[in-house]
Structure formats: structure tokens, C-alpha cells
């Protein structure tokens, strides 16, 4: 039996990605709502974490810019 690209590679890969995507959707649905009580302290901590990550991403972007432009 001749090897078929469609049946041998594309279809199995398609199935893997479809199953993966379905698993991600199921996980997102399962954990859609945080179970922890969002007290002011928790909210403040999560906000600070977001700001910290934005700061780090900005630094990385700046570093990337200096490398690309040679500045």
C-alpha cells in the first residue's frame, strides 16, 4: 500500500491539534472562575504582578530594540 501524505501525516496531526484545542477549551471552562476570595489584598497583589510583568516585557522589548538598531 502506497504511503499517503494525507492519511499518514496530515490527518493524524490534525487530530492531535483538534484534541489539544478541545482540551484547552475544556480547561478554560473548568477554571473560568477563580475559586479564591478576591479580597482587596489579593486584588492588589494580582494588580502589582500584572504591572511587574508589563514592566519586564517593556524592558525586554527595549533590549530587543537596542540589539536590532545597534543603539
Amino acid at each position: 500500500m502506497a504511503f499517503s501524505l494525507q492519511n499518514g501525516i496530515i490527518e493524524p496531526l490534525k487530530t492531535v491539534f483538534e484534541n489539544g484545542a478541545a482540551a484547552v477549551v475544556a480547561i478554560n471552562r473548568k477554571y473560568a472562575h477563580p475559586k479564591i476570595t478576591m479580597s482587596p489584598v489579593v486584588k492588589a497583589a494580582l494588580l502589582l504582578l500584572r504591572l511587574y510583568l508589563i514592566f519586564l516585557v517593556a524592558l525586554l522589548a527595549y533590549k530587543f530594540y537596542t540589539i536590532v538598531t545597534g543603539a
Partner: protein
Amino acid sequence: MDFLSRFYFNYRRIIKTIQIYLLLAGPGLIVMIADNDAGGITTYAATGAKFGYNLIWFLILLGPVAYFVQEMTVRLGAVTKHGHAEAIFSAFGSFWGWFSLLDLSLVNWLTLVTEFIGMTAGLSIFGIPPVLTVIIVVAIMMAIVISGRYWTWEKITMVLCLVNLIYIPAAFLVHPSMDQVIHNGFIPNFPGGFNGELFFFLMANIGTTIAPWMIFFQQSAVVDKQMKEKDIPWGKFDTAVGAVFTVIVAVFIIIVTGTLLHGMDVESAAQAAGIMMATNPWVGTLLAIGLFDAGFLGALCIALTSSWAFGEVFGWAHSLNYKVKEAIWFYLFYFFGLVTAGCVVLIPGAPLVLITLFVQVVAVTLLPAALVFLIILLNNEEIMGKYKNTLFDNIANITIVTCIIVVSSLYGISTLFPKLFG
């Protein structure tokens, strides 16, 4: 007679206590000793070469720091029976969950590459080609986990932990001056004054003390070992013993390089071992074996951490107590991480130095989040019940976590901008 019976009773009691400890020991001891991975060994070797014995006191201070952070994962794992990745998804929702899981996978994979760099460099001193090292290491690491019993994996890993103590005889072989070790090492001092270079080394040492994978690893290991609330005191004791050992190993590495290479700029532990092979072959050999073992232990734990985390979130069977065919995705993920990281080291001209530096930068994007989540979860009475943080726990943990976040962030930023601290 009374004396003899009391002696026998106490002897039996001590033996029984040791037996119980050996039964429950594992996650804390392994995570702490694996913390002295290839990157850690390099940091300590470079610190000893640069500053002699002068920063030993600082490393001793880092022992309690590591203990206080890791002790929280014991309680969280034993009470919730969930790994850290699953705990984050469940408590904070999918945004923080995905961020933690994907960031953990990236930083773990990059760290795995650095472990393979250490292992191949360590064995290349004995003339073993990197390709052979990678093949043998991956084969042994697969063989260790496929026994289908967590207990077997844990005890084999604890034997590997014993090899990490190889730096102790190495230190005795170099005949250090005990007077200088005590005088220079145990009295807090900043050699040459507090300058940018010293600050960089202090940051590097703190950076190697707590890594994101350690938090995820120990919590998952506690769950896989099926530890219960009643085992928490033993888990904490195990973590404390591990913290003592990790400091002892670090101090002895500093003594070795501080004695033989003081005043030199050492860039890697392999370089230090190579230099010593010429003058002190036995010490160089022990250092190279230690470097290989450190990389091996680190890779073993880090590859498992990613597999556990993905297994928890995706709902795969994710325990070392399963046979390969029962938890195929768990073992495939573990194998895939090891093989790809090993192959990177074999690519001619691969940017290995860049990868080593990049690890620090990626780690600081995850470490603060993982630590903050840990503190929040440990303060939640609904989750932790009577095992939640006490006031003393919070004062100690929040102080330590704040310091780690600030210093590791500065370390990551200084990796991006090397001239920042002069």
C-alpha cells in the same frame, strides 16, 4: 540495670525515629540538593575564586531563606493534594494558570539545556564526547522513572544526592587554612567594599537559591508521595535537613575554589575543574564528577516538574506510581523535554552562553508570581484550615519573598543590561 534498660529504650527510640524519617524523607532533601545544580555549582565556584572564603557567611544565611519558601509547598501539597500548577489554575483562574504553566515550561526547558551543558562539560574533562553523554544520560533518566514506583525513583535519586557531597572530600584534599576559613568566612564582611561586582555575585547566589521549578517540584513530589497532613512535621524536617546539606555543599565548593583559584575570574565550574586537573588532578576529578552529578540531579527533577505540571492541568495520569503504558503522556512529555534539551547542546555553534543568560531573565518573570501565589494560598483559611500561615510565618515569608523578588529582578535586569551596576 536501670541504666542499661534506659539506654536500650533510647537507642530503640532513636533507631525508630531514623527509620520513620527515612521513610518520609525525599521531596525536601532532593529539591534542596538538586538546587545545587550545574548553574549553582558554577555560581559557587566563581564566587569562591573571586572572593575567596569571604562570602561563606552569606551562603549560610541563604539556607533559612530556602527553607522558609520550600516549607510552604510541603503544607500546601499535603493539605490540598494538588500540585502548584493545578493550585494556581484552581485558585486564580485560567489566565494566571496558563501564564504560570507556559512560563514554567519555557524556563524549565532552558534550565534543562544548562544542565546538559554542565553534564557534557563535566564528562568532556575525562574525554567522553558530548553525544555519548547525552545518549547515556537520557537512557539512564528514562530507566530511573519507568520502574512504576515513586518510592524507587525517590531512593535512587537520594543516592545521587549523596554523590553531591563529593565536594567535602575535595575540600579536605586542598588543605585549606581553617583559621582563614573561620576568620574570613564566618564573620560577615564585604571583600573590597560594597561595589557593583560584589552586588552582582550576591544577586547570583540568591538567584540560585530559589528557582521557580523548586516550588512546583516539591509540591508535586509531596502529592505523588501521598503525604498527608500528619506528615507535615516530617516534611518540614526533611526540608530543613535538605537546606543544611545545600549550604554545606555550597560552602565546601567555595573552600575548594577559594583555596586553589583565589583571585581568578572563573566563568564555569567546568573551567575550574579543567584548571585544577593540571595542578591537583584528584580535586579536578572530584569537581568534574560533582558537576556531572549536579547537572544530572537537576535535569532529573526539572524534567519531572514540567511533566507533573502538565499532567495536573491536562488531567493526564501523572504519577511515578504508574507504569509507562498507564501514563503515556506523562512519560512522553518527560522524555521529549530531555531529548530536545540534550540535542540543543549537540548543535554546533548553538548560542549556549545566550541560553544560560536568558534563563535568568525568563526565571524572573515567573518567580515573583509563583511566590506571591504561594503566600496568598497559604493565607487562605478555606484551603489551608489550621495549617494556614501564622503571624510569624507571614512576617518571615513575606520579608523573604519580597527580598527574593527585588534581588532576583535586579539580577535578571542586570543580565539584560550588564553595565547597570558598574
